[in-house]
C-alpha cells in the first residue's frame, strides 16, 4: 500500500478509536448519586490536626466538633429552605451536653468563694460512652481540661483555658513566675511539678459525679470557652489518650507532653491523626488535605444521627465546587459571597442569606508612628512624596479616612446587599454588648476634606502625601476596600497619592510586626463570642492588632482602653459589662482607631434535600455540626 495512504488509514483508525473510547465512557454513566444516607460537604480548608488540645484553625475544628463533645453547647436554630425557622441563635444561652445541668447562679452551681474566687460546678451526665466503648467519667473531663492547659503548644489555643483558670496566658510563664526565674529552661522538674500542683490541679477537680472549676478571679467568657464549638474544650477519654502515648495525667510527667513539635509539627502530638470522642459521629478515615469520612455512632447518648455517614472533602476551585453541587454529588459547599448570582435559581439548590455572623473581617487599621526607615510603603518618609512617621497620629486624619469610605456602595456592590454597617469593634450580633445607637461615620467627602485641611496644622493639605495600602493577596473584597480609599482620597487633592499593593501573608506578617504598614486590611474571627475577644485584639495595648499599631496607639491604649478592658473582665454582671463596652465603643469611634468596614452576612448554599441543617453564629460553616441533618424532601 502507498505509504501515505497507510499512514492516513492509521490516522483515521486512531481517531475512531479515540471517539469510541469517549462513547464507551459515556455509556458507563454512574447512577445519579443521591446518597440519601450520606452528607457530602465540600470546603476549602485543610485541617491541621485532630488533637483538640492542639488545633487552632477552623478546618480542624470542623472535624473535632463532630466527633467530640463539650460540657455545654449553644442552642441551634434550624434553617430550612428559604425560610429560617426562628430557632434560638443565641451565643449567651447554653444547653447541657456532657454536663447534665448548665451551671448558673440560680441553681447554685455557680457560686462565690470566701476568698473572692468563683466556683463552677458541672454535674457530669451518666451513661455516656466514647467511641471505643469506655464510659465517660468526671475524671475524663478533668483530664481533658488539664491536658489542654499543659500542652500549651506555641500559637495554640491553650491560653483560653489557662487565662481563666490560672490567670496566666501560658504555662511556661506560670512556671517561670512560680520558680522565680527568667527562662523556662532554667526551671527544674521540681519547679514544674510544684507549679502544676499549685495552679493546675486545684483549678479543675473532681467531686463525686461533678467537675469543679475554681477561678481566682471572675472571667466572664468562661462558659463560652467551654461551650461546644470551642473545640479546645472537648472531652477526651483519659485512658485512651494515655494508651495512645499521651500524658498519663500526673503532676510529674506533664513537661514531657508540653508543646509537642514546637507547635509547628502537629504530627508530634499522639492525637494528631486519631480521634475518640463521645460525639454522634466517629471518624473513619482522615486524609489530610483531601477528605474526612465519618460514620454514625450507634451508641450515642442521644438519639443516633439520621445520617449514616458524612464526608467532608476539599476542593479549592469554586467552579469545581459549584459543579459538584449542581450535579448533586455534593450536598453543601462553601461559597464566597460574591458568587451568589451564579447559583441563584439553580434547580434543587437553596441559598440561605442574611445569617448573623460574629466577626470583624476585615477592618482597616492605622499605624501611628509608622516606621519610615527602609520602608517602601511610606514613600520618602516625609510630606509630598511620602508620609511622615506621625501621619496617622493626628486623629483628624483618621477621622477623615473614616469619612472617605463608601459604606453603602460597598454593601450594595461588593457584598451584593448582604452586608451591614458595624459600629465596631464589638460585633453587631453580640447582644447586649453592641451599641446599635452609636452614631458612626458615614460617607461624607466634604467632612473628609475639611478634616484633612485642618490636619497637621495645614501641612498635610499644602504639601500632599503618598503612601501604600496593603492587603493580602487573593482577597477580592479587601482589594476593593483599598481601592475605595484610594479613589476617594485622591479625589480630594491632586497632591494626594495612594498606591494599593497586594502582598502574601509572610510579607504581611513581617511588615505588620515591624510596624511598617501605614494602613492595612485584615480580619478577625471570634474565638469565643464575648466582647473581650474583640476589644482585646483591637484596642488593648498588647492586642493582636493594636499591639502593632505603633507607639501612638499603644499610648492611647495604655491610658484609656486597658483599664476599661480590665474592668469589664472583673465582673460577671451583664449590665455592668455592657456599660463598659459601650464606653469602649464610643472611645473607639471618638479616637477613630480604625475604620470599621461593612461586614458580610452569613450565607449558606446547599441542596434543597438537606433538612435540619443547624445554625448558630459560632458554627463556622454549615458542616460544623452535622448531627441534626437528614436528607429528603418534606
Amino acid at each position, binding site marked *: 500500500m502507498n*505509504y*501515505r495512504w497507510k*499512514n*492516513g488509514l492509521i*490516522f483515521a483508525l486512531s481517531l475512531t478509536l479515540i471517539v469510541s473510547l*469517549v462513547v464507551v*465512557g459515556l455509556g*458507563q454513566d*454512574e447512577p445519579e*448519586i443521591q*446518597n440519601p444516607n450520606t452528607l*457530602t460537604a465540600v470546603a476549602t480548608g*485543610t*485541617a*491541621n*490536626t485532630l488533637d483538640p488540645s492542639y488545633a*487552632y*484553625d477552623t478546618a480542624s475544628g470542623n472535624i473535632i466538633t463532630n466527633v467530640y463533645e463539650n460540657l455545654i453547647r449553644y442552642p441551634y436554630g434550624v434553617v430550612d429552605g428559604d425560610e429560617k425557622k426562628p430557632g434560638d441563635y443565641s451565643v449567651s444561652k447554653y444547653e447541657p451536653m456532657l454536663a447534665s445541668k448548665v451551671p448558673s447562679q440560680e441553681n447554685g452551681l455557680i457560686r462565690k468563694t470566701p476568698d473572692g474566687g468563683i466556683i463552677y460546678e458541672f454535674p457530669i451526665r451518666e451513661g455516656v460512652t466514647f467511641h471505643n466503648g469506655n464510659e465517660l467519667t468526671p475524671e475524663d473531663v478533668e483530664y481533658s481540661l488539664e491536658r489542654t492547659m499543659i500542652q500549651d503548644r*506555641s*500559637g*495554640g489555643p491553650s*491560653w483560653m483555658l489557662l487565662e481563666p483558670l490560672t490567670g496566666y*496566658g*501560658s504555662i511556661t510563664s506560670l512556671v517561670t513566675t512560680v520558680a522565680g526565674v527568667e527562662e523556662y529552661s532554667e526551671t527544674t522538674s521540681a519547679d514544674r511539678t510544684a507549679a502544676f500542683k499549685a495552679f493546675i490541679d486545684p483549678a479543675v477537680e473532681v467531686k463525686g459525679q461533678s467537675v469543679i472549676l475554681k477561678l481566682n478571679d471572675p472571667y466572664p467568657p468562661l462558659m463560652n470557652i467551654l461551650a461546644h464549638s470551642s473545640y479546645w474544650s472537648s472531652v477526651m477519654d483519659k485512658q485512651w489518650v494515655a494508651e495512645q502515648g499521651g500524658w498519663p495525667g500526673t503532676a510529674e510527667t506533664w513537661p514531657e507532653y508540653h508543646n509537642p513539635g*514546637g*507547635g*509547628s*509539627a*502537629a*504530627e508530634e502530638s499522639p492525637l494528631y491523626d486519631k480521634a475518640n470522642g463521645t460525639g454522634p459521629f466517629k471518624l473513619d*478515615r482522615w486524609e*489530610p*488535605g483531601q477528605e474526612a*469520612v465519618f460514620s454514625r455512632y450507634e451508641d450515642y447518648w442521644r438519639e443516633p444521627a439520621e445520617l449514616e455517614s458524612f*464526608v467532608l472533602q476539599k*476542593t*479549592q*476551585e469554586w*467552579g*469545581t465546587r459549584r*459543579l*459538584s453541587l*449542581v*450535579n448533586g*454529588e455534593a450536598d453543601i459547599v462553601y461559597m464566597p459571597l460574591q458568587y451568589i448570582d451564579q447559583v441563584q435559581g439553580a434547580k434543587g439548590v437553596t441559598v440561605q442569606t442574611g445569617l448573623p455572623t460574629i466577626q470583624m473581617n476585615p477592618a482597616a487599621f492605622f499605624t501611628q508612628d509608622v516606621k519610615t526607615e527602609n520602608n517602601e510603603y511610606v514613600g520618602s518618609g516625609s510630606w509630598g512624596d511620602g508620609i511622615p512617621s506621625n501621619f496617622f497620629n493626628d486623629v483628624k486624619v483618621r477621622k477623615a479616612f473614616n469619612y472617605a469610605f463608601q459604606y453603602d456602595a460597598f454593601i450594595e456592590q461588593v457584598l451584593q446587599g448582604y452586608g451591614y454597617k458595624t459600629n465596631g469593634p464589638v460585633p453587631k450580633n453580640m447582644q447586649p454588648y453592641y451599641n446599635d445607637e452609636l452614631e458612626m461615620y458615614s460617607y461624607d467627602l466634604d467632612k473628609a476634606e475639611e478634616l484633612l485641611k485642618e490636619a497637621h496644622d495645614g501641612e498635610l493639605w499644602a504639601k500632599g502625601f503618598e503612601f501604600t495600602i496593603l492587603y493580602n493577596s487573593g482577597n477580592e473584597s479587601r482589594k476593593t476596600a483599598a481601592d475605595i480609599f484610594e479613589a476617594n482620597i485622591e479625589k480630594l487633592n491632586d497632591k494626594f497619592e495612594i498606591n494599593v499593593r497586594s502582598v*502574601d*501573608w*509572610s*510579607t*504581611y*506578617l*513581617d511588615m505588620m*510586626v*515591624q510596624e511598617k504598614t501605614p494602613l492595612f486590611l*485584615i480580619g*478577625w474571627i471570634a*474565638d469565643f463570642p464575648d466582647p473581650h475577644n474583640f476589644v482585646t*485584639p483591637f484596642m488593648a495595648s498588647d492586642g*493582636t*492588632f493594636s499591639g502593632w499599631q505603633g507607639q501612638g496607639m499603644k499610648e492611647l491604649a495604655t491610658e484609656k482602653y486597658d483599664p476599661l478592658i480590665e474592668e469589664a473582665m472583673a465582673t460577671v454582671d451583664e449590665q455592668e459589662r455592657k456599660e463598659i463596652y459601650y464606653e469602649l465603643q464610643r472611645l473607639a469611634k471618638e479616637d477613630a482607631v480604625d475604620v470599621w468596614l461593612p461586614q458580610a452576612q452569613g450565607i449558606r448554599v446547599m441542596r434543597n434535600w438537606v433538612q435540619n441543617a443547624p445554625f448558630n453564629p459560632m458554627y463556622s460553616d454549615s458542616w460544623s455540626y452535622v448531627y441534626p441533618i437528614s436528607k429528603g424532601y418534606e
Partner: protein
Amino acid sequence: MISYITRRMLVLPFVILGVLLIVFGMIQFLSVNQRLSTYISSPAELKNTDLEVLAEEYGLNDPIWTRFGRWISDVVQFNFGWSESAKMPTKKAFTTFFPVSLELAIWSALPIVLGGIWLGTLAAVNHNNVIDHIARLFAIVGWSLPSFVAGLLLLMVFYGGVVSWFPPGRLGFEAKQIVNSAQFVRYTHMNTIDAILNGNWFVFVNAVRHIILPAIVMSYVRWAMLLRIMRSSLLETLRKDYVQTARAKGQKEGVVIKKHARRNALIPVVTVAGIYIAFLINGLVVTETIFDWHGLGRWAVNAAQQFDTSSLMLFVLFNGVLLVFANLAVDIMYAYLDPRVTYD
C-alpha cells in the same frame, strides 16, 4: 559509553547540592519574620507568641551554613521535617502526592510522545497536503490557548452542562468507597492501575473518566509543540543529502523515512522531550488545580506560596534527581540516534 555514564553519575551529587543551595539561598533572602510566617499562619496565633523566642527555637537566627548543615544531616537520615502547607510530615506528603502526579504524567505522556512524533512525521511527509494543514491547525490551536482556560472550558462542556461524563477530581463517590474499602488492595496508589490489578472494571472506568480531561489538558500543549518540532526537523532532514542519496539509490520511501530521516530528525525531538520532562511540573500545577488532583504540582505551589521550606527542598531534590537522569537519558539517546556523536 559506560565510563561516560559513570562520570555523569559521579557528578550527580554535586548537581543536587548546587540546586539545594540555590533554593535554600533564595529563601534565606527573606527576613526572619517572613520565614516565621510558616509557623504563624493567622493573626490569632500571634497571641502569647514571642516572635524572638520563636525565631530562636527554630534556629532562624543561626548563620546560613548552620541551618543548611542541619537540614542536610536531617535529610541523610530521611527526616524531611514537617510540611506546613500540607499539614503532614514532608516525607508523607511526598509519598502521598507522588502517585497522583505519576498517574497523570503517564496518561498524558503517551499521547504526547506517540502522537507528537507520529503526527509530526505524518505532517512532514505530507507536506502542504490537507493532512499537513489539519495537523498544523491543530498544533497552532493547541499552542495558543492557555491551559487553564482550556481546562475550565472542557469542564464546563463535559461536566457543567447537560452531561456529566468527565467529572473533576480523581474518583467518583461510589468508586472512592470501593477503593478505600478493605477488599481493595492499593498496589501503586494509582487508581487506574490498581483497578486493573484488582480486576475491578467499575473503578477502572470511573478512574479513566476522571483522568481523560486532565490528561488532555496536560498533553495537548506539549503534543502540539512536539508535533511542530518533529515536523519541522523532519522536513529539514528529508532534504538532507543522505536522504536524497537513499532515494536515488532506489530505496522505498517508507524505508527512507524510517531508517534515515526519522532517526536524525528525532534528535531535536529528543531534546525537546527532555525539556518537557523538565517542565512537567509546570503543566501539573495548572491541571491539578483545575481538576482538583492533589499531586506534586499543587503541593509545590502551596509550598511556594506559604514559604514551606522543607517541602520546597524535598520537592527540588526530587526534581533534581529526576532531571539529571532524564538529561542523561537524552544524551544517551543522542549517541544512539546519531552514531557520529561520541562522548569518549
